[in-house]
């Protein structure tokens, strides 16, 4: 398994795509941090809770982790490299596990980069305004939550990619769900006066874990998000377990 994981990392390092996404992450995180810090009211900036929101909301890692998780798996089908991958490791569960672990680790890496960029951009602006960034216990916990959310988004992307396999289909489907379908479902639940069901929908749970919106507690939202990752990984495995690679 260690060799397969090394191979997965090398796959990412030896094509240009991941570097483009990394550049996007750095650019977006810097832009968001600068915009959030300069647009905020001076009184808010002194509030540690506001500072935590400011930094975590500036990290663009979760979305990019999801996209890269999808792309890292669907590229195998898109370019036909899945054949050589399965010749290398004919036990398919090992391939899927390696891709899930790789996408999880990639999410961690992207979140750490995004956090570093957001802090590096926001901290000088806050200091200039006389409200230095307060890095304390709650700040560290919040940052850990966003790292975990990003990692789980990446793993979810890998599972979704292995299930759908068509790259454009998986990307469009995921983005439509996040931007449209889940909002429509939440509105429907509201109209039906069904409370709190929407907290268990994927985007809501992942966002609650990252502190981007109210909902379940971090522990509960983390468990729900991990449940989605496990669910997609399981049905993806059921699909590829006896799939004919032609």
């Amino acid at each position: 398994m260690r060799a397969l994981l090394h191979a997965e990392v090398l796959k990412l390092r030896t094509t240009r795509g991941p570097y483009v996404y990394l550049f996007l992450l750095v650019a977006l995180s810097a832009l968001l941090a600068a915009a959030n810090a300069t647009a905020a009211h001076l009184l808010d900036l002194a509030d540690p809770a506001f500072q935590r929101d400011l930094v975590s909301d500036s990290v663009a890692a979760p979305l990019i982790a999801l996209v890269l998780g999808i792309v890292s798996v669907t590229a195998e089908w898109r370019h036909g490299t899945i054949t050589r991958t399965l010749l290398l490791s004919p036990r398919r569960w090992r391939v899927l596990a390696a891709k899930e672990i790789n996408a999880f680790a990639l999410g961690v890496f992207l979140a750490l980069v995004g956090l570093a960029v957001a802090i590096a951009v926001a901290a000088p602006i806050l200091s200039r305004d006389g409200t230095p960034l307060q890095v304390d216990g709650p700040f560290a916990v919040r940052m850990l939550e966003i790292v975990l959310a990003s990692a789980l988004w990446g793993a979810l992307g890998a599972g979704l990619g292995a299930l759908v396999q068509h790259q454009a289909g998986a990307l469009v489907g995921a983005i439509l769900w996040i931007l449209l379908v889940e909002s429509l479902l939440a509105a429907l639940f509201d109209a039906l006066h069904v409370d709190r069901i929407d907290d268990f929908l994927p985007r809501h749970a992942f966002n609650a874990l990252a502190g981007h919106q109210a909902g379940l507690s971090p522990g509960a939202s983390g468990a729900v998000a991990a449940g989605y990752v496990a669910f997609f990984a399981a049905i993806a495995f059921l699909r590829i377990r006896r799939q004919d690679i032609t």
Partner: protein
Amino acid sequence: MIEVEHLTKRFGATVAVDDLSFSVSPGNVTGFLGPNGAGKSTTLRALLGLVVPDTGSTRVLGRSYVELVRPLERVGAILETAEAHPGRSGRNHLRVLAVGAGIPHTRVDEVLELVDLRDVSRRRVKTYSLGMRQRLALAAALLGDPEVLVLDEPANGLDPQGIRWLRDFLRKLAADGRTVLVSSHVLAEVAQTVDHVVIIHKGRLVRQATMAEVQAMAAGSTVARSPQAGRLGELLEAAGIAVRSMGDGALSIGAPTARVGEIAAANGVVLHELTTPRATLEEVFLELTGGEEP
């Protein structure tokens, strides 16, 4: 050693492989032939664990491919040329495989040298010609220095020098005691390379034979042209010889020219032509598969 036993595979209503059985022994190059859609690729993919059989089984070195430990060091395969990420360099493509299989990096340079790709190994695969991609696929197949090679159209895209090199290389591998199974639609190329052939048609085994046997089958046929073709045909059939009319007074006869000439002379039948068609694997193949080109 490769063993295929009663392999059947359907895709929807289409039966791609139908109760196919054959074996390939070490120390030989075996040609795997059949017309387009005969089930060759499906069979090779089933052998390599990529296609799940409906019934029957396949074994390489006594086990199913999925059960092999460190499979790249046991079996090398070429299945398609579009097997490398176009944005990755040839060297990095092989490095990924080497890392995943636990093969030393030095082997990557060795196989690149072997297939003459070292100078372009840092270029991205999408800039490669078809022949270069085929050589990269061969390098990937050879990476683990395997005992068994399963090659689907390995000469595809190679220039004449490359084809000659491949032919010699495969013969050398077989001489080392390795098992080599090669599918190809270039029959002339196969005829010069293989020791055995496995011919399939519509998913079923048509013939498994040595090349010597196949060439003997071709050598046993004669074409005779006579103004008394009907009479000659009757005489030959009476002698227990298979005869097929080719029209215009010509007969295809399943016997050597000497025997046909003797029967004609003994019965006073005039012959305008008595020839042995050039003995080729292709003719036998067309005969066995009902005239469909591979």
